């Protein structure tokens, strides 16, 4: 408490920085995660920190939050030099952190989660009523409404995020660090989060906002610090830069932020889904009578808040899950009852959303994973044996073509970085020459350059006349790539929009949240109409 009082006594002066880092460095073995970082966050500002994956953002945040100790450098909080050795120190200094992956107890109520670890008690007894009152008043003072009695597991993602923020506020945090807070939110939810953030700033809180969505950063931040390869490149006022400037600073070269989407003409149907109904593991109907058509040379984007049946839908199209009713046609051939390998042979490829767990086997070697889907067929199979020479040749070719950074095709896949693992999956799926490519979250968790690479690869593949079903939670990506956007809500397609300049994203957001839906006849027309 003493530390804390000392810290706040100084905060009246205007020049005082909420947080100041000087020459902070941290290495893990040979990898220098942070090099000589200088960062100053003014009091009462929203300070965005942007950078690609691996630029050192998370290490820096861990240093500030005390979970990692820097090798060298000085930290000042509220104008006082400090050493933060643990997150307890950080909390005592008024620093609060909202992690990207929430740290809530799903089986406790909202109120219990907020006070967990610092419960108000009387003679050692918890009082549910007091706890709820405390949390309620805390929430309303910042204009949040959270159901304090509800169990956390019943809340939506955005509500859970608010609980996380309340947790830090309850611990009297004045400096809040939000790690990629918008990654899981719809446009509307993002907006209301921004309202909360602005409100917090008005109440005298300082916010560090970590993100790689540049439009948002531009919209919310007062100042922006750009990290690249462990160094801070610069800090700029948000007013004076465009998103493209920030992107260039992040990557260190100018990026093609626009990919060229070919305006394709009406073409043949690649895949038709007719009245598909799919059950979840718990035997609920999570996909209800969905009909969709994907054409040659087209990217059909599938938008929706996670958990609305989209993962079961794509699993069903790929053959990992059998439908309850309905039919799937690939080039007019009914494949509803086919196995995954039969579908693969007919030309369906799949980039799974969770690449580390289902796209690759981490202990397997790179060449094995690259060609895993075709090892049993020529030219890689010679009679009953594998043709090591052909396999090696093809693997080297793919590694070169897709720019996979590795010392040898014999290294285990697990030794690659996330971006390179993603390239391995892309290389395998695209090089199988599919007719229909199901791409689920093809750029989740990869940096700007790798995402750009993936986008261009997908668009290149498109030119060969395949159809792509793109499932992504990143609306920007959807708008960038898709020709048409279908919105799924509670297992039904509620809208299909052609992607055109000036498309109203908020309308898409309303569809995603089930507030609005297209007329059934219009939907049917959009669904089957060619471009």
């Amino acid at each position, binding site marked *: 408490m003493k530390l804390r009082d000392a810290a706040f006594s100084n905060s009246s002066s205007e020049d005082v920085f909420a947080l100041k880092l000087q020459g902070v460095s941290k290495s893990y073995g040979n990898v220098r995660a942070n090099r000589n970082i200088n960062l100053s966050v003014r009091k009462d500002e929203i300070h965005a920190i942007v950078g690609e994956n691996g630029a050192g953002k998370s290490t820096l945040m861990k240093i500030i939050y005390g979970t990692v100790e820097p090798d060298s450098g000085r930290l000042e909080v509220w104008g006082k030099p400090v050493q933060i050795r643990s997150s307890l120190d950080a909390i005592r200094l008024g620093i609060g952190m909202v992690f990207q992956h929430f740290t809530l107890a799903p089986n406790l109520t909202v109120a219990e989660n907020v006070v967990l670890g610092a419960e108000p008690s009387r003679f050692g007894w918890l009082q549910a009523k007091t706890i709820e009152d405390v949390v309620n008043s805390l929430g309303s003072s910042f204009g949040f409404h959270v159901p304090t009695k509800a169990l956390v597991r019943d809340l939506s993602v955005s509500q859970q995020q608010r609980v996380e923020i309340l947790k830090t506020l309850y611990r009297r945090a004045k400096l809040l660090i939000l790690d990629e807070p918008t990654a899981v939110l719809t446009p509307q939810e993002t907006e209301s989060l921004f309202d909360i953030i602005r409100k917090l700033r008005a109440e005298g809180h300082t916010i560090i906002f970590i993100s790689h969505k540049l439009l948002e950063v531009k919209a919310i931040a007062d100042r922006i610090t750009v990290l690249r390869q462990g160094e801070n490149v610069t800090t700029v006022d948000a007013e004076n830069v465009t998103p493209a400037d920030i992107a260039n600073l992040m990557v260190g070269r100018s990026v093609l932020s626009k990919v060229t989407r070919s305006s394709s003409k009406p073409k043949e149907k690649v895949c038709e889904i007719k009245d598909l109904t799919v059950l979840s*593991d718990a035997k609920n109907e999570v996909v209800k009578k969905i009909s969709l058509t994907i054409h040659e040379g087209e990217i059909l984007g599938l938008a929706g808040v996670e958990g609305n049946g989209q993962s079961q839908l794509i699993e069903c199209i790929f053959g*990992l*899950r059998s439908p309850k009713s309905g039919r799937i046609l690939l080039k007019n051939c009914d494949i509803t009852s086919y*196995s*995954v*390998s039969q*579908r*693969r042979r007919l030309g369906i490829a*799949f980039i*799974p959303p969770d690449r580390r*767990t*289902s*796209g*690759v*086997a*981490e*202990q*397997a*070697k790179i060449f*094995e*994973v690259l060609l*895993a*889907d075709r*090892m*049993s067929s020529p030219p890689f*199979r010679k009679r*009953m*044996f*594998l043709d*090591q*020479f052909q396999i*090696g*040749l093809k693997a*080297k070719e793919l590694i070169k073509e897709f720019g996979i950074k590795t010392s*040898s*095709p*014999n290294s285990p896949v697990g030794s690659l970085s996330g971006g390179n693992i993603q390239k391995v999956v892309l290389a395998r799926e695209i090089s199988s020459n599919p007719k229909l490519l199901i791409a689920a979250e093809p750029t989740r968790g990869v940096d700007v350059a790798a995402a750009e690479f993936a986008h261009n690869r997908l668009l290149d593949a498109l030119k060969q006349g395949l159809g792509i079903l793109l499932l992504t939670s990143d609306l920007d990506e959807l708008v960038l790539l898709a020709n048409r956007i279908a919105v799924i809500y509670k297992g039904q397609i509620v809208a299909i929009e052609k992607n055109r300049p000036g498309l109203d994203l908020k309308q898409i957001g309303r569809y995603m949240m089930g507030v609005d839906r297209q007329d059934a006849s219009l939907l049917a027309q959009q669904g089957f109409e060619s471009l």
Partner: protein
Amino acid sequence: MLLCSRSRDLNRSKDWVVIQTVEKNVTSIRLKIQQIIDNVKTLPSNDSFSVIVKVVLAVLLGLLIVYLVTLVVSENPQEAFKAFITGPISQPNRISDWITDAINLTMLGLAISIVFQANQFSLGAEGQLIFGAMAAGAVALFLPPFTGLFIVGLIASGVAGFLWGVLPGVLKAYLGSDEIVSTLMLNFIAVQIYDFLLQNFFMPPGAGAILSDVFPAQGLLPVLGGKVRTSAGLIVAVLAVIIVWAMLYRTPYGFNLRMSGFNEKFAQHIGLNVKQVIWLSMAVSGIFAGISGGILAMGVHTRLVQRISGGMAFEGIIVSMLAQNNPLLVPVAAVAYSYLRIGADVMERTSDVSREIVIVVQAIMILFLTVQALPRIRNLRLKYAFGRKKM
């Protein structure tokens, strides 16, 4: 590089074609060499080096503790310990015992390494071994003797092991039964069937002990060597090592097996029939356990006896773990481990310390190895605790 720059200058000359072919050949040869180097690099890599260090440490620590224990329990600890350490190589017949034991452990280690690479914790080698022995006995005793009868016996034992592996495999793959439980229970069933058949069919009428007749000479494995001798099982084991290695690393079947062992979800995504891989891995593993039973019956006991396996199948698990499920390291581990077994045997016979002392070494090795295997076992438990995802 040199060729490249020169070829650009000679672009239009008539030498161009020659240089192009040379270049092509050089590239393909270079690729081939690179590939060989890559392969060599990945054989016993630095990773398996650390494994070997660990294993050696475990054995040394075990021996130290054995020494301390003999100091306490033995009248003549020096003698006893010497018997343990030098016993297996002190006499030609003991060397023979050592080799014979190593052959069987190799076969069983191979069987286990196949299922473990498929990430199936099948413990059914015991039952498969017993069925293998029984099949070999049936062939040797009931078929009319002819030259090469023992080969038929070995094949029959492999088939019997295969079939006794299909059962738990299919139970696991299509009915979702736990392979640990089902294989252990099937082992008991196999023992009972064996005993029943031994007493009612194989045992000659009026015999004083529960034994079958000695097999006819054609039904016995040929003996190799002179003073130090062993059976043709040695050749079978060497072949088996090569076959298992080639199967796992050079055939599509082995590729599928390893991929589905690494990550079942991944295997489904690339279109493998995971259920088939599961039951087939357990069945193919049974072939090698079964043949090991055939070698025991036709090469060691020369007849069917009660408790023919002597719990050896479970030693196969230790051998496979020591070898990190790598078929090429299995014989190495088997030779080392059988040395300890025979050493303990000799010690029991020549001193006042019982052979159970080897269990101490075993326990310490298992401790060392399971510390390493812990993450895998933990995953397994989680899998059971939270149920499996539908396949």
